[in-house]
Every structure is written in C-alpha cells, then in structure tokens.
C-alpha cells in the first residue's frame, strides 16, 4: 500500500497553468469581458413568496427613451421553462409567482440608470396566496399546491431484510432526527456574463456554467430555434461549487438579445446572487439504527425529507445521492430507506458540492459514533467490523470499481492526532477538546442513467502544441491542470507542450462538469485516444524524417529519435505541424459511461475517504474552533498534486463552514442575510492545518485510473467535525450548523444532569 503525504505531493508539482493571472487578479473570467456597449438588464421580481399574477402593465416602461425591450411571459417564443431534467422553472412567470424573486418582466435599456427607471415604471398586480414554507407541512394533504398538482416533487423507497431486528429485545437502538441547513455557494465571481446576437442569426452566450452543450439545448428550446445557432462559452469561472450548475441569467439574456438584436449583459450583485441563487438542499433526516451487543450492525431505517423550493431543479438527483449514501459503507441485515423531496415557496435549492450525500453522512456518522459508544467499542473498530464487502454498493448493486474503505480507515485510525484528546485545554477549564472520526464512500459521476459519458478531442495545432478540447469547464476545481497532466503523462511529453480549450459548446460534449466526474473522464478519454494520435504523429514524422517509425517516440518538445544520443527532439511539434500540408492529425473519443450493471439507480464506482478532526469548544462563548484535520483519500493515482491538495483543503474548509458557521435565516420565504457581513463563511483564520494522505494504489484489474476529488473532502470533513464537537461536549449533534447557543444549552443541560 502506498500513501503519499501532502509535502511529497507538493514537491512533485509544478504551478497550475492558470495560476498566474488568477493570483495576480488579472482579467480572465467571462464577467471580466462584458463588452462596453452591452445593454443593461433589469428584471421585475416578485416581492412575495406565492401569489397569482392579476395584471402586468409595461406600457410606461416600454415607452421610455433608451428602453429597447420590455418582455412578459407571453413574449417567450418557445418553451417558457427550463431545468436540468424537468423544465418547470419559468423564464418569466405567466400566471403565478412561486418564490420571492420569481421573474415576471425583463427589460433591456441603454444604461443602468435608464434600466432602473424603467423597472420602477412597471406595475404588476399580485394576489397573495398562502405560502408553503415548511417541507413537512407541504406534504400534508389539503395544502395548497406549489408544484403542478401537489407538493411531492419526488419519492423513493428501498427495503430489504427483517425489520424486527431493529426492535429485537437485546438490540441496541439509536433513533433520532437530524437537520442540515441552507448553505450558500458564495463563489468569488457571482453569476453573470453576456449574450451577443450575430447578423447571421447565431447567438454567442458567454456565461459560466457546468454544461455548455446542455445550456445550448435548453436555450434553443426557449427561443424555439435550432441549437446549432447557439454557441455557449462557459469557462473559466471564478468558482461555482454547484452554484452555476443550473441556468441563472442565460434565459433572460438570450431572450432580450433576440428581441433587441444587441449584446446584453448582467452580472449579479452579491445581494442578488444570495437572494436568487440556488442553495444546498436543507434536509430533515430521521434515522433509526440498531446493532447487537457485540457491535454488529443489524437494521437501519432512514426517512429523508428535503426542500427543493418551488421548482424541481436538481432535487431528485440530490435526493438520489442522499438515498444511496444513507447506509454508507456499512453492512446492514435489514434496510428501510424512504426519501421525499418537497416543493415549497422557499428559495431554490440545487446542486452543491457534496450533493445530498454530505447531509446524510453527517447523520449516519453520528449514529455510528453513538452506537459504538453504546457498545463500548472504539469508533474505528466499530466501523471496520461493519464494512460491506467491496464489490457490493449501498443499495446492493454490483460495483465495477471501488476503493476499499478499510484502507483509509486504517490510515486514520492509527493517526497520532487520535490520541491527543484531552478534554480540558487552555487553562481555567475554558476549552473542551474533542476528536472526531468519519468514514465515507462517494460515488464517482452520476447515478445509473447519467449523463456519465463524455467526449473529447486531441490534436496537433499549428503553433506546435497538443490541444485537448472538450466541453468540460474550469471553475477553479482544477480541470485545466488535470487535463494538462493527463495529456502530458499519457503521451510522455512536457506539460508546456499541451494546451487545453474548455467549456465551449462547439467542442466535443463532455457532459456536465459535476459529480466529481471530470478528472476521470478526461484521463480515460486521453488514455484511449493518445496512442492513436501518437501513432498519427510518429507516422507523419517518420515520413518527413525518412526514418522507420520504430525508432521514433514522442518526448518533451516533439518527436525524438531513439537511435541517436541527441539531447533534443529530431522534429519539434511546430516543425511537424509546419511540414504537414494536408491537415493536422486530430482524434476524437467518446468515453463510455461507467455504471453499475445492476438494474438500480445507484453508482458503479466508489471512492473512499476517512478524516479526523480535533476541535476546541469554548465553554464561555460556545464557539468552536477546528484545530487540526487529517484526511485520507483513496481516489486512485494523483494526477495533478497541487489541484488535488487544493480540493482536499478547500473542501475541508467549506465543510467547516457547513458544520459550524453558514446559517441563512429565513422569514416568509425570504433569505434574511443580504451579504457577507451577515452570512459568515470561514476565513483563513478559521482554517485548520489539513494533513492529506493520498492512498493511490488501485486494484490491478482496475482500468479506470484517477478519480475525481472535487467533493469527497467536504463529504468526509462535515461528519468528522460534527463527531469531534459531540466528543468534546458529550452531547449528540442533531443540527447543522452548530450554533454556539446550542453548545451552551448542551453544556447547561449536562451540568444540571
């Protein structure tokens, strides 16, 4: 077994190709490139969470000088709806508004000032309807329907085994309800961009997103035009974390560009982004889990409920991931899983790093610690003895590849940090220290049914580079360094010989850049086509050099002759490109989906991670500080070490935000924090030292290679932190984020009992 530490990873790294301009604060994101002559956009949005539209009067606004277009729902030429699978979110609301901020009228004007004045001149009459604000109440029969017919957006069940085990007389049983909150993505760059209409009827859409090819189809349906008339440039973005996965401003921008024939642009303010953007799905989770006196798990029941807001968005997909992870990596004799997604008039929930799994992993890992304590077993030993066989998934599906959880667990359970636990630190008994351990598995890509396949191309370009082109996007996660490293590694050339072009709908369709699937997809695609392109290049070079192909190989800078001792290539890539008059070699490949062969909506391939967190709880203020973390991840070989480390550290800090800080209070369907003065995200001072242990070895039969690392660290960090706090204060954690007032209440309760 090989395990590399972060310092070894860093020593093996070169700077990321996109590091320079990002560190220097240079212009490079799409919102940095908004053309000066673009029209300003304003949208009349609902001030109430639920209401019937009685009338819309745009006459005064439309008549104002400098106002080019004022549009209502009836102006949408094609489908007035979009969404990742169910297209139920209106571009402009026609008869009802279903959340605060729902758009009713969109306008474009020559300047921001004129646009503001025109917005003021719009009159919309709304009749308030009862607002459905609680997901459980939403599902009570008789409640007014937010969705098309009722408020049940999605439901799923899975049962196996004998449930009497849960209540057997000698079984130890823990039952509790857990809650997680509405975390916001808070990307550095808020949603924005521009759309340019061309004289030939085409549109260029420059707005960051995860899936340029999908955006193109959705936008074409809205305009009722051929998708070939739309070109989407979706990369690079200044962060997303899932927040730019769904369409945001694109539908309204392309509609206004179509009506005005002019470039239109919008860049959301932080306040707009926070009020209108999608958030992490809040979850309520009832879990009931039992084990026998020896600590062998028996039965597990989970009843999950999430709030997706008024439209479907990724609600069912997020819940599918939660559902699949509700049993974790553990073997249960009996399982009873039930999941429901509710429509409400709260704001939109959608894709978010950790994607449903992190919510249930928090709850399940609390259950595991509580059961381990109840039978008097070390939490690591308890987990180890209850692991499921490697090639069976959590829903009993057959897996096609898997990283063994016992390896990461072993790296963490023997870690020196585990034995630092000392419950009274800092003098005068002010601080309590706790240590928490977590173990999780995480499916690679989307569940069965995908989209899990993707395409990419590799070619020699005139300027002497090997270009990888695909619709996958760079959002800060490291798609560029992963792509460069994959091409350089597989072809055996220098990283400086490689260029990548990402995020354009004119290039091969990668599928969505989501679900930690980009690294694996890129690597497998490159592995498939690189030998073909290599053969094309060597054959062409042999012809030019008059040498047999057998003595040639690709190396740094070009084609090398093995039969000589020269310290440079015999033919540089640029020379080769110059010499090829009849077109440059190009190869394209479709990377097939890697899915479970079982007929079940679940994953086929699982990565594993385990983490340790030590926390200090301030008994005077209830504040919690994460001191140290160690994360062991088994995600296959590390392709781009710095990007790998960045993802682990960043995910851990984002997990600390979810566990301890990020709370969005709501009132009557409205989010109450408008900016980052109120909504607290972790700063560098809240970031602990994160030790990273990469377990790179994969099964010899495993052909999948490196896996994505974009999410697994948040998945594993959140339960580790929650378990550490529970260890420190001696009370289970039932709700995230953990408010200091709840900590003090727990301490009061403990001291009085």
């Amino acid at each position: 077994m090989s395990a590399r530490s972060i310092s070894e990873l860093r020593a093996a790294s070169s700077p990321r190709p996109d590091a320079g301009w990002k560190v220097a604060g240079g212009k490079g994101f799409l919102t940095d490139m908004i053309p000066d002559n673009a029209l300003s956009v304003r949208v009349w949005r609902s001030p109430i969470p639920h209401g019937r539209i009685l009338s819309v009067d745009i006459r005064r606004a439309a008549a104002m000088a400098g106002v080019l277009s004022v549009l209502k729902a009836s102006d949408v030429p094609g489908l007035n709806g979009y969404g990742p699978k169910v297209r139920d979110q209106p571009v402009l609301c026609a008869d009802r508004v279903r959340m605060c901020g729902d758009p009713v009228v969109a306008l474009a004007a020559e300047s921001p000032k004129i646009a503001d004045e025109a917005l003021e001149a719009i009159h919309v009459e709304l009749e308030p309807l009862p607002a459905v604000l609680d997901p459980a109440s939403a599902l009570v029969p008789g409640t007014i329907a937010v969705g098309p017919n009722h408020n049940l957006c999605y439901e799923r069940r899975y049962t196996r085994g004998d449930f009497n085990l849960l209540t057997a007389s000698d079984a130890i049983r823990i039952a509790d309800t857990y809650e997680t909150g509405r975390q916001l993505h808070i990307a550095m760059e808020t949603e924005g961009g521009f759309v340019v209409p061309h004289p030939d009827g085409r549109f260029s859409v420059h707005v960051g997103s995860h899936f340029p090819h999908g955006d193109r189809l959705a936008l074409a349906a809205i305009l009722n035009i051929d998708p070939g008339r739309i070109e989407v440039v979706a990369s690079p973005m200044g962060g997303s974390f899932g927040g730019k996965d769904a369409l945001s401003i694109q539908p309204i921008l392309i509609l206004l560009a179509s009506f005005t024939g002019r470039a239109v642009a919008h860049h959301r303010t932080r306040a707009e982004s926070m009020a209108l953007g999608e958030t992490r799905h809040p979850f309520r989770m009832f879990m009931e889990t039992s084990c026998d006196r020896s600590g062998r798990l028996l039965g597990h029941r989970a009843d999950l409920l999430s709030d997706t807001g008024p439209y479907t968005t990724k609600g069912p997909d997020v819940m599918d991931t939660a559902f699949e992870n509700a049993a974790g990596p553990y073997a249960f004799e009996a399982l009873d899983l039930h999941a429901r997604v509710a429509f409400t008039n709260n704001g939109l929930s959608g894709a978010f790093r950790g994607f449903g799994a992190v919510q249930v992993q928090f709850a399940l890992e609390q259950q595991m610690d509580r059961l381990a304590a109840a039978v008097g077993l070390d939490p690591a030993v308890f987990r180890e003895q209850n692991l499921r066989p490697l090639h069976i998934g959590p829903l009993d599906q057959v897996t096609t590849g898997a990283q063994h959880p016992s390896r990461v667990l072993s790296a963490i359970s023997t870690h020196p940090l585990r034995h630092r636990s000392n419950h009274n630190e800092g003098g005068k008994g002010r601080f309590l220290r706790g240590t928490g351990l977590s173990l999780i598995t995480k499916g690679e890509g989307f569940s069965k049914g995908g989209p899990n396949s993707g395409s990419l191309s590799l070619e020699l370009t005139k300027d002497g580079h090997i270009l990888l082109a695909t619709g996958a996007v760079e959002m800060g996660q490291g798609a560029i360094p992963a792509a460069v490293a994959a091409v350089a590694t597989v072809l055996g050339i220098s990283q400086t010989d490689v260029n990548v072009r990402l995020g354009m709908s004119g290039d091969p369709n990668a599928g969505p850049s989501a679900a930690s699937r980009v690294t694996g997809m890129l690597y497998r695609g490159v592995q498939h086509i690189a030998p073909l392109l290599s053969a094309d290049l060597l054959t062409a070079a042999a012809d030019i050099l008059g040498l047999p192909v057998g003595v040639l190989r690709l190396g740094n800078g070009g084609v090398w002759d093995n039969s000589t001792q020269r310290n440079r290539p015999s033919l540089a890539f640029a020379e080769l490109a110059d010499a090829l008059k009849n077109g440059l070699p190009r190869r394209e490949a479709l990377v097939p989906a890697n899915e479970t062969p079982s007929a079940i909506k679940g994953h086929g391939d699982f990565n594993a991670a385990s983490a340790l967190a030590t926390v200090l709880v301030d008994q005077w203020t209830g504040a919690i500080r994460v001191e140290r973390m160690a994360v062991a991840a088994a995600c296959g070989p590390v392709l781009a070490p710095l990007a790998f480390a960045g993802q682990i550290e960043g995910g851990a800090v984002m997990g600390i935000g979810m566990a301890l800080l990020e709370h969005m209070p709501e009132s009557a369907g409205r989010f109450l924090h408008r900016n980052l003065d109120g909504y607290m995200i972790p700063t560098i001072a809240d970031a602990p030292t994160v030790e990273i242990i990469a377990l790179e070895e994969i099964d010899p039969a495993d052909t999948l290679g490196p896996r994505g690392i974009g999410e697994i660290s948040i998945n594993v960090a959140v339960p580790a932190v929650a378990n550490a706090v529970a260890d420190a204060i001696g009370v289970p954690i039932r709700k995230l984020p953990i408010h200091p007032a709840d900590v003090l209440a727990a301490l009061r309760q403990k001291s009085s009992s």
Partner: protein
Amino acid sequence: MFFYRASSASEALEIKAQWGGAARFIAGGTALQLEWDESAELPPLIEVSSLGNRVAWLEQDDLHICAFARLESVRRDPLVGSHAGTFTRAIGSIAAYGIRELATLGGNVAWPKGDLRPYLIAAEAVLITPEGSIPVDQWCSRSLETLILSVRLPFAATTVHFEKVGYRSAFSPSLVTLAFRRSEKHVRVAVGGGRNRAGRLRAAEDALTSSHLIGLTELTDLVLSEGLLIDDVTASASHRAEVTARIILGRTGRLS
C-alpha cells in the same frame, strides 16, 4: 460631493455647523465605508485625521490619547503600552491590521458599533471635546454632534478585562464586546459591539460588587435586564447575555 480637509478643530466644527446634521466627520473612513453599498450618495464629509500631532501624553498623571491617532499607532505607542497595557492588548484584538492602520481612536468611540466603547466605559475614561469633558458612558447614551479631541484614561494602570466575541475567528462583527474592571470598592462592567447599545450593566455591577456568590443564571438575567443587548437573526439577546455572564464568571474564576 462635498469633501473638506479641516485644519483645526474649530474650523471643522464651523463647517459642520454650516451643513447642519447632514455633514459627517471622517478620519479613517473605515466605518463610513461600510455604508457605501447602502446609500446612493455620500454625505458632506469633513476630514479631521490630520488634527492631532502626537499619540499620547501624560497630564497630571493621567494618560491622554489623541482621538485622531490611528488605532495601530495607539497600539504601538510605548507610552500607552507602559501605562495602559490592557488597552494596548484590547486594540490588538479588534479590527484587522489593515483597518487599524486607517481607523482612529476617536472614530471608534464616536461610532455606535465601536468595540472600544465598552473598554473605555469600564475604564471610566473621559472624552475631551471643545465643549468640555464628557465621560464615555454619557457620550454613548446620547448622540452628540461635537468632535472628540482626546481620550483621558484616569485609571490607566488598572487591569481592564476586555473581550470581543465574534461569529468566527477573524473579520467578524461583534456578537458582544464586553469589559470589566475591579477596583477596591466596586466592579464596573460594560457591553457593546455590533448593534448592541454600548453602556454599563449597573445591576450586574451591584451584584458582582456585593459579597454574595452569584450564579450563571442570575448574572445572565441581570445582564439581560439592562436591555442593551439586541435580539436578531444571528443571535438572541439571551445568548449574548449568557456569553457575557460566562466570560465575567470565567475570568473571575467563578464559573462552575
């Protein structure tokens, strides 16, 4: 936009009088900057940061600190450090370094959210203004249009316990900022920070001064009874009061 750099305190007050209540004094501008996103237009500004020429001095054994001195200058000043070590440390625990390099002592005291207000109230500090001397707790309880010239710390050498409690490790608004000082005869306690009103906790002072043993619940209730702590979506007043009570009892070794 009106921006005037005053060359003396009297000139600054004169210009202010011409504009009525609309004009604002500005020194570091760090508090004003927080409002810029909210309002379309800036108020008329009278710049006063160059009105002081020394950071601190002694006058009849009392330490005086110039109101126009940047917080970081005050924190690094050797005279302040040697005469009021707890004040030096208190400044180091508020605002970020970059903010302290701009923000002034007077600005912090004049600003309702200023974290140093509780310290200065507990320290029985007095503000020197063109209209005379005003104890800091009086200044905080009513709004005054005058200019603070300097701050007098009569009991500089005594220990003031000070703590700003935020919502995260750094760059955070205050959940509650509190300070207390024990003298031979009494205990003086003050709170403030964020949207809390800065002021003395008189009932808590009386209870802490008396010889009877006070418990957490009792002290929390007394802190709350003063009505200075706010209830909002981030934290309840009772939570802020409990934190205040725990810190006071903890620092005096009375938290069981």
